[in-house]
């Protein structure tokens, strides 16, 4: 699965989302529940704004010195016997990983949840090699068993499914014969997956934060699946987006704290694992061979430009959990594995405007995303920046809109034109006006009046009232 999901046009995706009642209920419930948890977890600190500022300064510093820290990281991974591969494109990353699979003659691969491997369609590549690829995060596992249904949320990938749907999928695909109780479903997945960990040839993970100074990297989960993926198979491959690193343990700690509170409202998740290199000589568990793939895949084009701050992202999904647009359309509507506000900023940068030109407009610029971002990415400003580029550089705005905006620009800058237009407005709107409202508006007003009333223009403009009143005073 690549970054792009689905092939329907934007409007159709939106329509599907809006009419998926279960998904909408689930998303609204998740937003309300996780919103409260996140708020409590951040407010109890008493100085959350300082935490955000600290997160921001760490991320900005790393991005400004990214070449240095990546060099340091790679040196330290190699010192510990790990192999580092810098991949400029997803093809390079996949080719390298395919090479390892062939060399190891691997048949079975277990994975812990990783957005970046989704981004490069790694599973499809591995399956083409004849490997059995098993996702071990419960949510990802459910989606995989259901014929590779795409994730709809970067933290809770199967959010759009209810437990009855999951039971049906398990019954059909895994011979499951119990109820739709989450405990029983989860237990079944546990039993199925236990054997997979023990017999897998390769474990593949993403990376929450790499630590440049020690060549370490951290994995954050609640299930403990990443620990089994990295403890049992003989070969481990970790794929990281090139920006996901920090200088030392001390910065890692801060970002992990920001992540867990913002993502799931927990002080820390159940398992935070810091791994360095392959296992040591006398260790029993842990991989004998460790590969780190550092991926660019379009990220370097963002670096040094006006969207650089989006690379501060730590993938907590707090912005998704507060977004009023995501709330009603769900993750699949974005047509990208990266959904919500962060997806609407990131997807056009990584996947191009042709594919994702609508996403920056799928926002009211209400700023809820920016307000919660733990590393202070000005998400709504970046959405606005995209719009500017789409209009002014890419010329991708619809002609009718360009004309309307041109007219607006003229009218709003010229008192004479404004006077003419606004004086004429009541007369012009007269045919559409009933009482003090317009129920069936013409042109661009139609989209408005399809769902709501529009006020009729004042017979006496405010400015006329003010002027007459001043005259009366005199």
């Amino acid at each position, binding site marked *: 699965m690549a970054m792009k999901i689905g092939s329907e046009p934007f409007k159709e995706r939106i329509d599907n989302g809006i009419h998926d009642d279960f998904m909408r209920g689930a998303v609204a419930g998740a937003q309300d529940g996780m919103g409260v948890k996140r708020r409590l977890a951040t407010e109890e600190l008493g100085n959350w704004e300082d935490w955000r500022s600290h997160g921001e300064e760490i991320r900005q510093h790393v991005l400004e010195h990214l070449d240095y820290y990546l060099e340091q990281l790679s040196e330290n991974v190699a010192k510990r016997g790990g192999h580092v591969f810098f991949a400029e494109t997803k093809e390079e990353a996949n080719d390298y990983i395919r090479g390892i699979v062939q060399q190891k003659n691997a048949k079975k691969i277990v994975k812990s949840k990783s957005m970046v491997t989704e981004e490069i369609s790694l599973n499809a590549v591995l399956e083409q090699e004849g490997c059995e690829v098993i996702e071990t995060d419960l949510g990802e596992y459910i989606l995989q068993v259901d014929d590779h249904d795409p994730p709809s949320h970067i933290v809770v990938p199967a959010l759009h499914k209810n437990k009855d749907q999951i039971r049906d999928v398990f019954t059909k695909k895994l011979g499951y014969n119990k109820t739709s109780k989450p405990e029983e479903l989860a237990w079944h997945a546990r039993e199925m997956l236990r054997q997979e960990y023990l017999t897998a040839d390769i474990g593949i993970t993403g990376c929450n934060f790499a630590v440049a100074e020690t060549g370490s990297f951290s994995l954050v989960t609640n299930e403990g699946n990443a620990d089994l993926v990295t403890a049992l198979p003989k070969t481990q491959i970790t794929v990281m987006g090139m920006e996901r690193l920090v200088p030392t343990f001390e910065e890692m700690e801060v970002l992990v704290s920001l992540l867990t509170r913002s993502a799931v409202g927990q002080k820390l998740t159940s398992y935070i694992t810091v791994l360095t290199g392959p296992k040591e000589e006398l260790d029993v568990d842990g991989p004998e061979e460790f590969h780190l793939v550092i991926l660019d895949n379009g990220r370097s084009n963002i670096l040094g430009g006006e969207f650089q701050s989006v690379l501060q992202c730590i993938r907590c999904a707090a912005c998704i959990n507060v977004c009023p647009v995501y709330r009603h359309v769900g993750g699949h509507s974005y047509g990208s594995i990266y959904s919500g506000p962060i997806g609407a900023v990131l997807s056009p940068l990584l996947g191009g405007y042709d594919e994702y030109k609508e996403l920056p407009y799928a926002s009211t610029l209400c700023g809820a995303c920016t307000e919660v971002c733990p590393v202070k990415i000005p998400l709504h400003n970046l959405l606005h920046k995209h719009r500017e580029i789409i209009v002014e550089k890419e010329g991708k705005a619809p002609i009718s809109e360009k004309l309307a905006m041109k007219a607006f620009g003229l009218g709003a800058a010229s008192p004479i034109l404004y006077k003419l237009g606004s004086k004429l407005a009541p007369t012009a709107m007269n045919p559409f006006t009933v009482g003090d409202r317009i129920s069936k508006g013409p042109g661009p007003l139609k989209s408005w009046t399809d769902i709501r009333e529009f006020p009729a223009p004042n017979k006496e403009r*405010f*400015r006329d009232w003010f002027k007459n009143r001043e005259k009366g005073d005199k």
Partner: protein
Amino acid sequence: MKVTLFATCLVDLFHSNVGKATVELLERLGCKIDFPEAQICCGQPAYNSGYTKGSKEAMRQMINTFQEAEYVVSPSGSCAFMLKEYPHIFKGDPVWESKAKELAEKTYELTQFIVDVLQVEDVGAIFEETVTYHTSCHMTRLLGVKEAPMILLNHVKGLKFTELPGKEQCCGFGGTFSVKMAQISEQMVDEKVCHVEETEADYLIGADAGCLMNIGGRIERKGKPIKVLHIAEVLNSH
């Protein structure tokens, strides 16, 4: 105190009552109101849609219009915030950046002006109704005005306040979003209307004409018996 009113185009064209209430309210609080005729629109509809270059002329028009003003006060958090954005928009412009900054610094949203500058918390209003209040996103998050409207409403005699569930959620207006993404906007405003109904309030109060046009328009279309008022109108009831 001399106050220069930035009425906003929505108020000028569609909601003159809000403008009238703002004038009367401020006069009652001892201000002398000036309304420069050359003001039109802050440029936000075009700017937010990505037409930055196309909206700059409108912004310059506004900057010139308010050059002499001591305080610029607007009954809209969103439009007031737009004026505060001007310095960023004209950043690096040798002529306009400093002028933009001057305007931004003397611009206030109405309730913010009353509480912070006039230092008045009780405007002596009487409004014997049950109301709920919609906190507009731009006013609260971008302009950062959260307390002032609540302080003023709390002092209105007879007013019974019920909190709006999900108040921090956008109503789905978003300027051109409301027509460009009408499908989504409809879902958002519907949820907002449901929440307003849950409060069982007779009046929905807000401080931004855009949001009120959106929510009010949907309330009217659905035939709900809820009346919509701008906070200036409530504060001017006595």
